[in-house]
């Protein structure tokens, strides 16, 4: 994917090996993050988008399901954005309020992104830390499996799952979850290998702390920084993937919608001159992606001040 593993290694190394790890590292990172204009801008965008998704429906005059019969049939002439009839973003070609639809689409897209990233964090961390900590043959087998799974064209698998099990949210989550953890497990495994030989792990082993507890108590907490950065960068990738699928018409099903599905609809009707149907979903789509990428990059730079 888009992340260079080397950068990740560098961060993790710094997190793990810097003798002033612990609080001061986080304090350091925070001040660097706050000074990073792009990152703060991204954070601002993200907050805006999340607030829009959470509370936008309270501002809407229309629900996302109501059809406005006044503009039906004359969408191109009367359905544009207007304060007067309460359709701030206009209506879609069925006469539904585009503002409410965009709120809903943003909610779904964010949910897809978060769930995908969450699966990656949980599964990828456990899998990678186990492989790295146990080591030897187990590690070999576990990582070869990841290699094999990564070699499968995942878009194809995802589409297959959606076609076979219906286009439900669950199928989408499962499909995205299946692929999202692979890269994460590799990163976590690499970091675990380098952590494993540190003296405090040896101290824990010598006292007889069990492997599971060592992973939970000593390894994972020392990888949180890397995991956080990677997860932040993974969310927009998940959103992109979902949008692509939706654009192909395989994503979430009506009456649910996502930003990708809205963009797809908007693109389909653009010939009738209803530019707002494409513009607003696309705007929120871009804001969300920019927000996540800026924040992710900012976190990465904040945690790894070397080579900038």
């Amino acid at each position: 994917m888009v992340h260079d593993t080397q950068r990740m290694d560098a961060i993790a190394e710094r997190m793990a090996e810097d003798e002033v790890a612990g609080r001061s590292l986080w304090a350091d990172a925070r001040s660097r993050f706050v000074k990073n204009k792009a990152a703060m801008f991204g954070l601002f965008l993200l907050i805006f988008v999340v607030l829009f998704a959470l509370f936008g429906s309270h501002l809407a005059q229309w629900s996302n399901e109501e059809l406005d019969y006044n503009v039906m049939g004359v969408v191109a002439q009367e359905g544009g954005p207007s304060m007067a009839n309460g359709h701030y973003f206009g209506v879609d070609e069925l006469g539904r309020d585009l503002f409410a639809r965009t709120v809903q689409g943003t909610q779904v897209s964010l949910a897809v992104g978060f769930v995908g990233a969450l699966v990656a964090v949980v599964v990828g961390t456990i899998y990678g830390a186990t492989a790295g900590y146990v080591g030897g043959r187990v590690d070999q087998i576990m990582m070869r499996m990841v290699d094999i799974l990564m070699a499968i064209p995942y878009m194809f698998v995802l589409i297959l799952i959606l076609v076979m099990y219906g286009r439900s949210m669950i199928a989408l989550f499962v499909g995205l979850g299946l692929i999202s953890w692979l890269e994460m497990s590799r990163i976590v495994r690499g970091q675990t290998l380098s952590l494993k030989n540190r003296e405090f792990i040896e101290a824990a082993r010598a006292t007889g702390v069990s492997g599971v507890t060592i992973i939970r108590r000593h390894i994972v907490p020392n990888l949180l920084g890397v995991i956080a950065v990677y997860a932040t960068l993974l969310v927009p990738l998940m959103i992109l993937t979902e949008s692509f699928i939706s654009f192909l018409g395989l994503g979430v099903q009506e009456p649910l919608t996502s930003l990708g599905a809205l963009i797809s609809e908007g693109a389909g009707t653009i010939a009738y001159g209803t530019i707002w149907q494409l513009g607003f979903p696309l705007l929120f789509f871009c804001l969300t992606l920019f927000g996540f990428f800026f924040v992710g990059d900012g976190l990465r730079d904040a945690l790894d001040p070397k080579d900038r």
Partner: protein
Amino acid sequence: MSTPLISARDLRVAFDITRPGDMPWTKPRQLHAVNGVSFDLMPGQTLGVVGESGCGKSTLARALIQMVPASGEVVWQGETDLLSLSSQRMQKYRSEIQMIFQDPLASLNPRMTLGQIIAEPLRTHRPELGREEVKSRVARMMDRVGLLPQMINRYPHEFSGGQCQRIGIARALIVEPKLLICDEPVSALDVSIQAQVIELLQELQRELGLAILFIAHDLSVVKHISDEVMVLYLGRMMEKAPADLLYADPQHPYTQALMSAVPVPDPQIERNKQTIPLHGDLPSPMAPPSGCVFRTRCPRAVEACAEEVPHPGRGRHQCACLFPGPLTADEVA
């Protein structure tokens, strides 16, 4: 004679070394990190283990507690062979044998507070203890090793090396072990702090009747704390004797060389001191010299030394050299 707390017989550790381009089926080369080491350690006594970096001191310590695969025998209190135990049955002995480490800061998890770190062995071995009980034991232990109560919620990086080593000691002693393995506990500390830490260890030893296996890379550090001293070279034991005997009358040329590197506080003696420098580099442990492993650097070496492996023998003063004896005039540089 009472039974030793722990006695090792012909302890051996060999690591398989696979080089990067090796095929999976090529037979790995072996590195004998510990090669036939034996010792007895009585309850409440201290055994010093001395040798240059890479001679297998840490590996010896790890072998005792099944941290690396080893062969030979490690008998605990005259009855149990620790090496033959399954990891489940070994668990019980892990609280009786505790370890402190060379790098005080690196041996503490940077994401855990001092209180959590010290409590960890208790949580592992005495899960039945309540939260309050654990807390009070940690507090008592902290007081005992000279840490202030208000430090309990701080993180390791906020402490100095000496304080970190005190945390390590507190963590090791909280489960009331019988044997404390100290792997170069003071090598990373300032000289003034070294003395404090060693003093603390001695005090605790007297109070708790601890046996200590004290690892160091030079003879001066172990001099005062040890009852018996063992000198290692390339994984083999060169000489072992009660401390006073060894320091007064070293028999092995390697011990004598190490001894001459020890600074003497009295400038008069220091100036007249006989020194024998160690020539050449440490041979690779992958390909140790035949016969006596020390022969490539030994001022006393003759042809016979390449043929025959010298055995340390038995008794109070053991020396693995074909020609043991005090320094002669022409060996002194």
